[in-house]
């Protein structure tokens, strides 16, 4: 692309090369043009790719001290200091005394003893239960020390006879090997004509189009300097919505499209709304502290505002009331009913909606947070979003419920499904819709049912109320490739900046 054009940078570099005969190091060009070497190298690469210049790469190796190496270059190696201390204090001196004399810290002490022993400078023996040191030679010759000194004097290589010392220095992390690539460029003779044409054809051009140029029309006939428009743009961080929030927005859009009205209910509920109105017996295991969060402070019990409704719910539990049910044949406790809990599902919201909307037709949905007394792990969380709703109309049936479930499940992109009879305390009949997911296989995605008369009659509702839910968290996790439920509410900003939910 752009065979006939050069970018401004390419032009500058190429010009510099043409002016000089022969090979030029990249650093020299950089210095000459007042640019960074890496930028020049990248331009040279581009020119070489277009076969305008030849670029040779030579590797050169140099050595430099690490921080630790620098320290030893100045203060001497620990083992040298230890040997000197022993020499000064005399043989059979205790380790502790020698270390103190050599002023070695704990880390250096280990290094010193280890290397002094390996080099055969010092011997360690036990005398009368004490560990003592003994010098084995008159003088300690340390090639490592000489390497450090050489490099510390400003050299970046060492003479060949110190190679062994250099190897040890590198293995001890005192010296590091630095590989530098040297780039040298040269214009290709055969391409000189092309280069000339390229350099003369668009020597200058408009960089920034200004209001003045537009007003005066001076841009007419003038060339525009081309830009490199093939660059892969870097990742940048602008504002963005949370992918899970985008998923929930998408669900809401679908449900509104199907005619559902969004509703709201509080996170803190009385057990009356959370369980009793849903015909969950008061001694049901799901109501125990192992499953349900109790609210204890600053208040632990709430009010039941509608006395008539309360009485109807109580009667349904005790003996079925006027519903034709046997009820639970057990006493009903108002204290339990008033107890405060963090709602364990969104179904109490459906109940609150029905208490205010008793005339058909009605369609309501909610997507919101619920709480279960679970330990946070990859598979369980103490909070989860639920998406559910109800449909109330005259003459609705189990077949209609299955139709709605199928429609909702289809609208989130699932094509294959099957139904299984299900069980929930507040619906009868109950259904579970299983969906064939591309990745997960058959999964349970949409539970549903027809509210029991014990649930609807206390509201004075005699029409059929279909209730449905959808396992939205699971669908979201599958679509984002998330396996760990904790990532639904990810605390990783880098991840959030990268991720999108695509419908």
């Amino acid at each position, binding site marked *: 692309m752009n065979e006939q054009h050069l970018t401004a940078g390419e032009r500058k570099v190429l010009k510099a090369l043409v002016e000089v005969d022969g090979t030029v190091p990249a650093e020299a060009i950089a210095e000459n043009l007042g640019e960074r070497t890496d930028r020049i190298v990248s331009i040279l690469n581009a020119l070489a790719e277009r076969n305008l210049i030849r670029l040779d790469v030579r590797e050169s190796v140099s050595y430099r001290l690490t921080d630790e190496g620098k320290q030893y270059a100045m203060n001497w190696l620990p083992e040298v200091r230890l040997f000197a201390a022993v020499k000064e204090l005399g043989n059979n001196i205790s380790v502790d005394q020698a270390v103190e004399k050599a002023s070695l810290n704990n880390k250096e002490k280990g290094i010193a003893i280890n290397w002094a022993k390996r080099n055969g400078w010092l011997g360690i023996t036990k005398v009368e239960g004490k560990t003592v040191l003994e010098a084995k030679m008159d003088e300690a010759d340390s090639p490592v020390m000489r390497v450090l000194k050489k490099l510390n004097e400003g050299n970046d290589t060492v003479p060949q006879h110190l190679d062994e010392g250099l190897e040890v220095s590198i293995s001890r992390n005192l010296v590091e090997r630095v590989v530098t690539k040297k780039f040298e460029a040269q214009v290709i003779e055969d391409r000189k004509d092309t280069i000339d044409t390229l350099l003369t054809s668009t020597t200058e051009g408009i960089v920034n189009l200004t209001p003045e140029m537009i007003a005066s029309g001076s841009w007419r006939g003038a060339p525009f300097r081309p830009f490199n428009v093939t660059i892969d743009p870097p990742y940048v*961080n*602008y504002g*963005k*919505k*949370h992918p899970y*929030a985008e998923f929930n*927005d998408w669900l*809401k859009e679908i449900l*509104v499209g199907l005619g559902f*009205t*969004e509703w*709201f209910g*509080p*996170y*803190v509920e009385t057990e009356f709304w959370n369980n009793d109105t849903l015909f969950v017996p008061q001694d049901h295991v799901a109501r125990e502290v192992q499953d349900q*969060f109790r*609210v*204890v*402070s*600053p*208040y*632990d019990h*709430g009010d039941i505002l509608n006395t008539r409704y309360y009485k109807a719910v109580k009667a349904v539990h005790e003996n*079925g009331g006027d519903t*034709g*049910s046997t009820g639970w*044949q057990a006493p009903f406790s108002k204290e339990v009913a008033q107890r405060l809990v*963090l709602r364990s599902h969104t179904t109490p919201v459906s109940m609150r909606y029905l208490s205010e909307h008793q005339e058909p*037709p009605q*369609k309501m949905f909610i997507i919101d947070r619920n*709480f279960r007394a*679970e330990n*946070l792990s990859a598979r369980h969380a*103490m909070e989860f979003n639920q998406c559910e709703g109800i449909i109330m109309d005259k*003459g*609705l*049936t*189990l*077949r*209609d419920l*299955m*139709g*709605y*479930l199928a*429609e909702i499940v289809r609208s989130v992109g699932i094509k294959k499904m*099957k*139904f*299984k*009879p299900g*069980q929930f305390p507040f619906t*009868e009949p109950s*259904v579970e819709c299983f969906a064939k997911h591309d990745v997960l296989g058959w999964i349970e995605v949409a539970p549903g049912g*027809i509210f029991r*008369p014990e649930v609807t009659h206390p509201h004075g509702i005699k029409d059929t109320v279909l209730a449905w839910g959808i396992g939205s968290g699971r669908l979201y996790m599958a679509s984002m490739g998330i396996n760990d439920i904790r990532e639904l*509410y990810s*605390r*990783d*900003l880098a991840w*959030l*900046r990268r991720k999108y939910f695509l419908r």
Partner: protein
Amino acid sequence: MIVSCRIDSLVGLIGKKLAIKELEDILFLLKAEVERVEGNEIEIEINPDRQDMLSAEGIARAIKAFLGIQKGLPSFPVKKSGKKVIVEKGLAKIRKFISCAIVKGVEINEELLVDYMHLQEALTATHGRNRRKASIGLYVHDDIKYPVRYYPETPSKIVFAPLGYDEEMDGPSILKSHEKGIEFGSIISSFKKWPALADSAGQFLSLPPIINSNDLGRLTTETKNVFVEVTGTHLPTVNQALNIMVTSLGERGGAIESVTIQYPDGSLMETPDLKPLVMKVSRKDIIALTGLELTDEEIIESLTKMCYNARMSSKGILTIQVPQYRTDILHPVDIIEDVAVGYGFDRIEPTLPATMTVGRLQPLTRLKNRVRDLLVGMKYQEIMSYILSSPEMMQVNANRRDALVKTGNPKSSDYSVLRNALLPILLDFIAQNQHVDLPQKVFEVGDIVVPSETAETRINQIPSVSGLTTDVSVNLTDLMNEIGFLLRGMGLDGRFKFVPSDNPTFINGRSAVITIDDEPCGLFGEINPEVLENFAIGNPAVGFEIHLPRDGQW
């Protein structure tokens, strides 16, 4: 609940060879799910409404009827044994009820013994609410000297060798050191006297609901005849548990005999009562609820496939006999569901009615969406967090004292209160992202919860939005411009003011309260370095939080 069965045993009970796939499909249509198959073992998940399917016998019975091998009400004839259990005074508050049966000639072997124990455990765990409501004991009938006494006894006088032990222990030691005593002791430990079951020779059968005696209460492969007792606090639950237990043993060839229970007031009760429950359901109701245009024959066929007997009157009323082991038939709708299950969920064609309604979002959702769009336009990244939080984050670290709503049974103190502000959550978020590219601008829109003494559920749940910016240097003027853009974008031009205010979350002299129509509804400022330190944040930050109206209207 998961029920584990041996496949050969299950297939033997069904009496028809079925491939695993067939078995799986049939169970799916009967509400049960196959969880795992390994060798001869099959694990089946049973829904809590079908307590009668907690054993291979119960599952096989349901399958047999569904496949038409043995349809209709299973028959369990009950003969009077003439044996008696005498309930003595003083148990009314402790564990009032007992129901018993004798099952003779039960098939028994090592594996079946384990199965019977499993059923007993499963039933008492779920239906019996961990033995509190009902618990079951099985005994060697031939070793018992009738009548049996059920009476309250001083704990130290209840002395027998508990199941699995050779040495005798008294009641208090059983509760203290026997594993079942430790697990279930709390059911009776608060009472002065404990329930005891003994025969007329003075031998203890058990300490209900804790443990059986190792002598009378240990079934072996030699046992032919079994005495079954269920004690509990709720008579219907006690009877249902007994019915399920004895009918399962009945499926294994046992002949069921009844026992007379004599209560302290002199009343007599003959248990078990396996006479079917009779319910009436109209054809009209069945068709109206299912939407299936079934003929009378189809309805009756579906019901018999679910173990009911049914007869249709000329007026379209069905008289239905319900097996006594079903615990979940409270209302005609429960039978109507079984019509649909018996018909087959795989045969039901879904329909989509034209229930005409106009859908809409909550006005608040629309406002929240507007706020999110405005903040994204200002280059903020949206985050989502848990509602549950910790007092440390909300109060200590953020230098705040606002009251919190607390849960009494948190799983960890990190998630023990409901958040009462979003800003501390954003501070925690950036503290966890110190290494990520700067600048960081994050926001969250969500509900917060504060206590409210007069509210129905004692809380006020407030929709809120908070934003936070951190960088090597931050600028309060930029933040104020952003808040102005946000508020004006919500149509509040001319209605909001920034009123200087000291707030320990922020630097003194660099924070304000946001008012709308002179009502305070938010705050902003530069974060106090003390707070930054508390959260271990290395860069300065500015932030704001604004409460939104629940009805979406300012």
